[in-house]
């Protein structure tokens, strides 16, 4: 982290009380960065064992956590789970004070983000939809890209906190806009994984060394982060998860639904979604999305 970023992370506002819900592979390193910056962390977890080793105040319900914190982060898998934590019977909505901010870093449907924002607004609570890109490594390195939807001044209030684990923080537009940007991110990234997988498949089927092909391509116009990282995984046949493929499968359901609601044709995305369906059917949902190569090999 550069000196400028280190200052941005924490010092202008000093020690803050921060709530965080969702201590999975992404959430945990994000919390650790907030702790390292000296913030006072308050946690709630559906599975208490995920709290182990974090020095923080633990609450019994999201509502109780919300009552204690002016800013709360969530990092949860599905739209339904975020809605439950935010709006459910013991949800954040029932504890958070007017003027407080919920920063949802989960990847959910844009429509769901707008719905949650509308409900929270009734209690004077602000929502920022702030999904991230960069994966587990990005969370560990505090280099996540963060795409935010909501009011610009609300983003400015929490920007120093986001800077603890994020590098590029962009205000996209009103609520839901962050999730739209994330959907676009997923479309491009997973389509690129499929393209790399197909190239690797063609190379192998033609009796050519995949590693050499990847190496050569990485210096030219086809160079990309996906070719570099996912291509290497394919060459090494290392399908253990970075990000579990089932999450990309989930995201593609959201993307296709959003496209449908907008009356937009996304032919390539739709085909890639079918390859993800096949991946799920063959039981590789908990493996890395580089497994799209295995789908091609099985067909």
């Amino acid at each position, binding site marked *: 982290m550069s000196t400028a970023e280190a200052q941005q992370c924490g010092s202008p506002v000093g020690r803050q009380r921060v709530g965080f819900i969702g201590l999975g592979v992404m959430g945990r390193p994000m919390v650790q960065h907030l702790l390292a910056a000296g913030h006072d962390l308050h946690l709630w977890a559906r599975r208490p064992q995920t709290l182990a080793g974090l020095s923080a105040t633990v609450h019994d319900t999201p509502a109780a956590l919300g009552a204690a914190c002016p800013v709360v982060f969530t990092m949860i898998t599905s739209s339904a789970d975020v809605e439950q934590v935010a709006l459910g019977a013991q949800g954040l909505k029932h504890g958070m004070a007017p003027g407080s901010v919920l920063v949802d870093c989960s990847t959910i449907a844009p429509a769901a983000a707008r719905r949650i924002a509308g409900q929270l607004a009734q209690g004077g609570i602000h929502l920022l939809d702030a999904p991230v890109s960069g994966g587990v490594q990005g969370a560990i390195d505090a280099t996540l890209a963060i795409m935010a939807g909501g009011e610009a001044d609300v983003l400015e209030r929490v920007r120093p906190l986001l800077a603890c684990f994020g590098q590029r923080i962009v205000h996209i537009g009103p609520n839901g806009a962050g999730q739209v940007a994330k959907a676009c991110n997923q479309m491009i990234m997973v389509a690129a994984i499929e393209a790399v997988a197909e190239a690797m498949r063609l190379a192998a089927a033609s009796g050519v060394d995949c590693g050499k092909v990847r190496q050569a391509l990485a210096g030219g116009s086809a160079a990309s982060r996906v070719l570099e990282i996912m291509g290497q995984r394919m060459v090494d046949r290392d399908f253990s998860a970075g990000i579990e493929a089932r999450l990309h*499968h989930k995201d593609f359901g959201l993307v*296709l639904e959003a496209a449908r609601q907008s009356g*937009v044709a996304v032919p390539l995305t739709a085909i890639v979604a*079918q390859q993800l369906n096949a991946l799920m059917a063959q039981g590789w949902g908990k493996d890395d999305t580089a497994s799209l190569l295995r789908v091609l090999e099985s067909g």
Partner: protein
Amino acid sequence: MKIGFIGLGIMGRPMALNLLQGGHQLTVWARRAESMQPLLDAGAQGAASATEAARGVDLVISMVADAPDVAQVMRAVATAATPGLVAVDMSTIAPAAARQIGQALASAGVDFVDAPVSGGEVGAIAGSLSIMAGGSDAAFARALPAFECMGKNIVHVGASGAGQVTKAANQIVTGMGVLAVAEAMAFASKNGVDRSKVREALLGGFAYSKILENHGQRMLDRNFKPGFKSWMHEKDMNIVMQTAHELGLCLPGAAATAQMFNAMVGSGLGEEDSIALLKLLETLSGQADK
């Protein structure tokens, strides 16, 4: 038989009329009162609510737009249920939604049959619909005399939801079929070949299909009046693709077709017949207003 009928739109009205003509005693209800009038004129009784339409009948049938409508209607039906009532939904909805509605009705003592149809308004008027049914043997047997007034090809496919699975399969075949015929038409004319001659030649071979014959002719006539509206086919393809997503099912052809229907709705062709796919292809291929 005493039958309650709910939903009197383009499809529901002629289906209900055919039940009256078959000698059944009919009580009807529709959200818009004016759509009940033709049935009342023909001798049906009017009901004040879905619940009332289901009271004291042997069979209740719904023909409405989408899953939430079916669920709402069937909740109303359940409150009027007398033991042994059979409820039939002939709308096109997701198989999973049909199974859920069947379970909810079962706990109210109502036996449920999902029985979507194929054949469009023409088939509904002629009483020649294809009916694909899912439910118990006993419930199907109860509903069969009513089905025979409305349809010709009546198949009891399997348990609850099986009718909707069949309808979704039907929409895969018809959706891709219309797109295939439209692509063949665009292919012929971009090659400078007479499309009507191509159609005529293909009708004699393995590419023969009802869609090539009927939809193909309407493409030649550039008659884009529905028929079957594109937005409805889009809705049905969405049922297919959502089910594929949930099950882990790879359907690349249906996926590409569904995207074309998305584009139809997005470009303002939703109210036209699904053969307007041809117009979309022509635009994409620079064959403006062929």
